């Protein structure tokens, strides 16, 4: 290895190879799902209920169920997560209690999703007697994405320059006014980005909704938040493993819809961040 040019080439080769190894599976997943799923996608598939024991028809109830669940999760998790983040980053003193709370939040993010499912079953379904319902499922998903929202919001709040707060105080603003008029408006893009990433996660998880809301098969849409609902990830699980002889096209079509839904949410997050970066100049 005395030839530095050759060393350079070898180093480049391995670094490039490692990157390729990462990119390849991602690309393959997308390509396979699109090529196998796209033929299934048509208006009927998106708007009809499943028919013939889910072997034909559409996946409309599952799409709507996922939309309901994600909406419910956000209604619950965004306000609580945001308020907690404001407290932690602006008000909390650096003491033992605060450190324990922050540690708990970090750990909450690492809890396996099936544990959230069991927790939701015990607390919402059984203890609060909400039964298996959209309410129980939404709350469970909401708790699961709380750490994501809190962490993203805290980072966004803390990245607002100290000089903005200083000026605000120097103009006779109180602490809450400073947060309300200066810190929050400048943190909103970061908070939204984190929230949408959390939503993408909520839309894709199967385990937390398994015991709390998901219906095997429902021919109509839920009528209230106390009804059960179908959901895309669980529906995919069902038609892939529980129902025999489902056309591969339908399975991949469902996967494609779920993938597109999650990717769209991430895309919105990226766009918000991009828009904001363009404006931000400090």
């Amino acid at each position, binding site marked *: 290895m005395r030839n530095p040019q050759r060393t350079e080439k070898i180093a480049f080769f391995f670094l490039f190879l490692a990157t390729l190894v990462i990119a390849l599976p991602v690309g393959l997943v997308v390509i396979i799902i699109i090529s196998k799923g796209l033929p299934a996608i048509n208006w009927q598939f998106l708007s009809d209920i499943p028919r013939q024991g889910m072997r034909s028809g559409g996946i409309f109830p599952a799409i709507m169920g996922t939309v309901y669940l994600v909406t419910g999760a956000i209604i619950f998790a965004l306000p609580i997560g945001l308020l907690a983040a404001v407290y932690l980053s602006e008000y909390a003193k*650096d003491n033992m209690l605060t450190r324990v709370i922050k540690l708990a939040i970090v750990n909450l993010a690492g809890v396996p999703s099936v544990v959230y499912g069991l927790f939701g079953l015990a607390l919402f379904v059984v203890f609060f007697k909400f039964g298996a319902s959209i309410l129980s499922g939404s709350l469970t998903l909401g708790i699961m994405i709380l750490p994501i929202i809190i962490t993203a919001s805290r980072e966004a709040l803390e990245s607002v320059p100290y*000089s903005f707060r200083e000026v605000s105080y*120097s*103009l*006779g603003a109180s602490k809450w006014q400073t947060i309300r008029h200066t810190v929050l408006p400048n943190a909103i893009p970061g908070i939204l980005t984190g929230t949408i990433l959390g939503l993408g996660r909520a839309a894709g998880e199967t385990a937390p909704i398994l015991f709390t809301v998901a219906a095997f098969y429902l021919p109509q849409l839920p009528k209230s938040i106390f009804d059960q609902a179908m959901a895309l990830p669980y529906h995919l699980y069902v038609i892939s493993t529980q129902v025999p002889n489902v056309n591969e096209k339908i399975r991949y079509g469902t996967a494609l819809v779920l993938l597109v839904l999650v990717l769209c949410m991430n895309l919105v997050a990226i766009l918000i961040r991009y828009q904001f970066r363009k404006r931000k100049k400090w």
Partner: protein
Amino acid sequence: MDEAIKMKAENVNFFYGKTQALKDVSLDIHAHSVTAIIGPSGCGKSTFIRLLNRMNDLIPHAQLIGRVYLDCQDVFSHAADPVELRRRVGMVFQKPNPFPKSIFENIAYGLHVNNIKDKDFVETRVIESLKKAALWEEVRHRLHESALKLSGGQQQRLCIARCLAVSPEVILFDEPCASLDPISTAKIEELILELKKEYTIVIVTHNMQQAARVADYTAFFLLGELIEFNKTQELFTAPKDKRTEAYITGRFG
């Protein structure tokens, strides 16, 4: 020293944790005059000026012993409200720091947080403040453009206008020209001389010529102590303390 005394520091000691930043400082600030605070880096001048509007409150583990008065009222007493104090004692910072909002919104911010909602009043006050800060002619046609599009010197005058909009009685300038070019600096200095007719001004500066040009009184700080305080002309022409003489003749600092 015949003018009324607007603010007064009495035996002020200030600590960051265990580090003492100010040692037994007593200083009178005369109404409708410019008081300059000079001294080498780390001498406590910024710490001192930030006591006058209690900006140091925001620093954890900081401790004050001594008293600061505004119109004979103790600003650190339990009854005193720091928010109220900061409405009366405004501040312009070292780096121009406009909010990422429009020019108009920047200046209206202080009124907004003071619950002044009357649109006509706010508009009048914004225009008035811009005129006082000698910025009106340059921005009158683009009040709703982003303040970040202005040049550094314009941004600093915008910050002055923003401070004037809340009608303070005292204005603290913390090295306001440190990041500006000579022409912008001259404009700010001109402005300070104009503003002292209506306001009481305290300015921290690294630049001794600047102190000599704008200040009626000058205080020289060294290592947290007030070494000498006098009318500017006397301090610069006949310093009483050897250390002051050494500093103003450029032997250190």
